[in-house]
């Protein structure tokens, strides 16, 4: 478990030699994502005011006006400001939806795998139900019914992506519960909650963390996809929303969609790199 604390504990992360020991993919992914988080946190300082403000003339291409380095959109909103503020929504939606999916998925997986029997049957049938429905369609339907508000978008994405985590955790739990130290704990009188939380959960965490990085990337993409179809919270600027709003001008001003599109590509790539890096790291750990 030292490996996990290597990644999670900031103390070790900050040490350059520890960072250098990490796989290249993981390192670059972390650097990009950290930079994005910093930008998102500093958004109000970098671009004070409302990113929806009609700041300048519409349809300024990047470079047309030094005041708007990335240009302005259809209504004259500053694209750079939108990009910086949009990072917040994209990341918040990505992380919150993943947190929701991981919480629900882990709980279901643990209960299902550890308790077995009818609990397993019921929970797995429910999980399969969520697995067989196309996720993006279900998310569209949920947002269309609940309304295009940020909390509902998080809910819709979270609800459509927990099933993968549940299957993963269940499979790990099934293997772990047969191990001697778990059986000893049970023999010593450890109740199911205690065994699940203290002995099984810490050991299923590594695959969950890998899954979470992939899920976050998927959530960012899903949010962008929903926004493209007009299912974004029009009161918060987001990258997907910026693409959706500029779709009208795709032929005349492609930069309006390309710039936020590129931001999404970079974010998703960073998250995928982290996922790949973690997988490599864990495999190396297994071998050692």
């Amino acid at each position, binding site marked *: 478990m030292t490996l996990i604390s290597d990644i999670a504990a900031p103390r070790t992360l900050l040490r350059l030699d520890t960072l250098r020991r990490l796989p290249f993919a993981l390192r670059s992914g972390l650097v990009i994502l950290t930079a994005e988080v910093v930008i998102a946190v500093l958004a109000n300082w970098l671009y004070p005011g*409302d990113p*929806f403000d*009609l700041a300048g003339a519409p349809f300024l291409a990047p470079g047309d006006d030094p005041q708007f380095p990335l240009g302005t959109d259809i209504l004259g909103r500053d694209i750079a400001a939108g990009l910086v503020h949009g990072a917040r929504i994209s990341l918040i939606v990505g992380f919150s939806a993943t947190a929701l999916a991981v919480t629900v998925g882990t709980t279901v997986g643990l209960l299902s795998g550890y308790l077995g029997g009818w609990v397993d049957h019921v929970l797995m049938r429910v999980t399969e139900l969520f697995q067989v429905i196309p996720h993006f369609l279900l998310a569209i339907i949920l947002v269309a019914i609940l309304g295009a508000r940020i909390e509902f978008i998080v809910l819709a994405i979270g609800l459509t992506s927990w099933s993968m985590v549940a299957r993963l955790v269940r499979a790990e739990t099934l293997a772990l519960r047969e191990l001697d130290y778990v059986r000893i704990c049970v023999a010593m009188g450890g109740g199911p909650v205690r065994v699940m939380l203290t002995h099984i959960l810490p050991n299923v965490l590594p695959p969950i963390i890998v899954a979470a990085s992939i899920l976050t990337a998927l959530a960012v993409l899903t949010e962008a996809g929903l926004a493209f179809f007009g299912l974004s919270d*029009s009161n918060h600027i987001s990258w997907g929303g910026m693409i959706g709003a500029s*779709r009208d001008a795709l*032929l*005349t001003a492609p930069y309006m969609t390309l710039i936020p599109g590129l931001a999404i590509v970079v974010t998703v790539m960073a998250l995928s790199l982290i996922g790949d890096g973690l997988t490599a790291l864990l495999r190396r750990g297994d071998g050692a």
Partner: protein
Amino acid sequence: MALTAFPAWTDRRTVCAMLIGIALAPGLARAETPVRGGTLVAVSNPGEPNVLTTGVGQAGAVLAVSSKIFDGLLRYGENFALEPELATAWVTSADGKEIRFTLRPNVRWHDGAPFTSADVKFSFEQVWMKVHPRARATFAAVEAVETPDPLTVVFKLRNPSGVILSALNSTESTVLPKHLYEGTDILTNPYNVKPVGTGPFRFVEWVRGERIVLERNPDYWDTGKPYLDRVIYRMIPDATARYAAFESGAVHLGVHSPISINDLARAEKNPALRVEFRGYEWLGSSIVGEFNVRRPPFDDVRVRRAVVHAIDLQAFSRVTMRGIGKPGTSPVLSSQTKFFVESGLASYPFDRAKAEALLDEAGYPRKADGKRLEITLDWLPFGESFQRFGEFLKQSLKAVGIEATLRSQDLPQFFRRVYSLNDFDFIVTHHSGFADPQIGLDRVFWSKAILKDVPWSNGSGYASPAMDRLIEAAHIAATEDQRVALYKQVQAQAQLDVPRFTLAENRQYTIVSARVRDLDTGVIGIYDSLKNTWLAP
């Protein structure tokens, strides 16, 4: 391209040469002889119609299709000139209290049944006066419709009425076949979706979500017409995909601004396409803001005025409509010269300080967080442009401390919210002014037009005794001059109370392939029957 095409066309060289000549000299186009045949593909816009006859549905997409299948008593040419259609002659009596129509003989419905005056009387009594949102105002003066013989219809009036002859075209007053509608529930009659008319094209099939197919009516009364074999309406939901369809030549015609305003300049440069701004005068399209005056904060006229003061209408037209629109000053469009009041109406020029002062006065001071009040802002789901309008307004209001939450929804939800539940604060919507304010304005300012569940009626809930007096006086005005004078007062009253206001006079456009010839560009050209239109090979 053209050179390599020549060898294969050797036997048609003359034709080719002629076509090139035509292309080089547009002046010659007028002298062209129409070519018979061909299929004209149009795009259904906005969206797909819900029915195919304007007798029971008045959305733009319905009007476009229905106008090919049905005839009106009259049709309107350039400058609102009246032209005969199902009626060959119309005479107004000296006292103005009787209009006598002579109907065209030997006209048959598409199912072969003869068209007679009974169909007109039935349509008036059972369709127009019962299920149409505007007919009750238009025909307020009509006491009875008489049919002395199968080819004569007489409108008996209580008082002279200048509006009736402006509303007898096929889309506004659709004549439905009595033999198929009598004794049925008009709104659920199966022929609403497989219409039987007298027009130049007959209904063939409607594949939902995909296409509507119409074919030439071989028994059309205007012998030799139409020229086209078929007219097909295609459903293409995405604006960029529609533009691609025009550019590739897959689609020849689209009305109601079928492509994004951002692609307009590109279309104008494309030699294979034409952009046509004419043909919308009858429709009188404008973009309006409308308040719910039933509840706070917009029950207070000062708050409504503050909102208008807070909006830079010049910038609204310039930014959201890319300059093709024009700021509104009255509920009547400036193109309706007979009724439009050019100056002297209450106006609310862009002035944020004034807006803030009015809000202070109304009891909405800025709170610690800078906000005065929070409202909802719903935009009519007629495409992306309305969302842009909503976003523009949200930012404008924010500057004076009004925090608006934008809400998006589909059309049935929007109609339900505004016209059934009345659960809204402020909406940005579309308004059709039509040829006459009696058709266009009564339905939004008359208290008797507050109709539950009826879209495009008086949704704001505005009821003013002063306004009602003006409108009702106009309905029974003895002379046309008096009626016009009263509608000028209606505009003054509306601008004073501002239950709704014109954000911009809309300029819609038609996109048409250069192959399409003799497209009607009269005041209601977009709802023309296409009987004179033909496709160059």
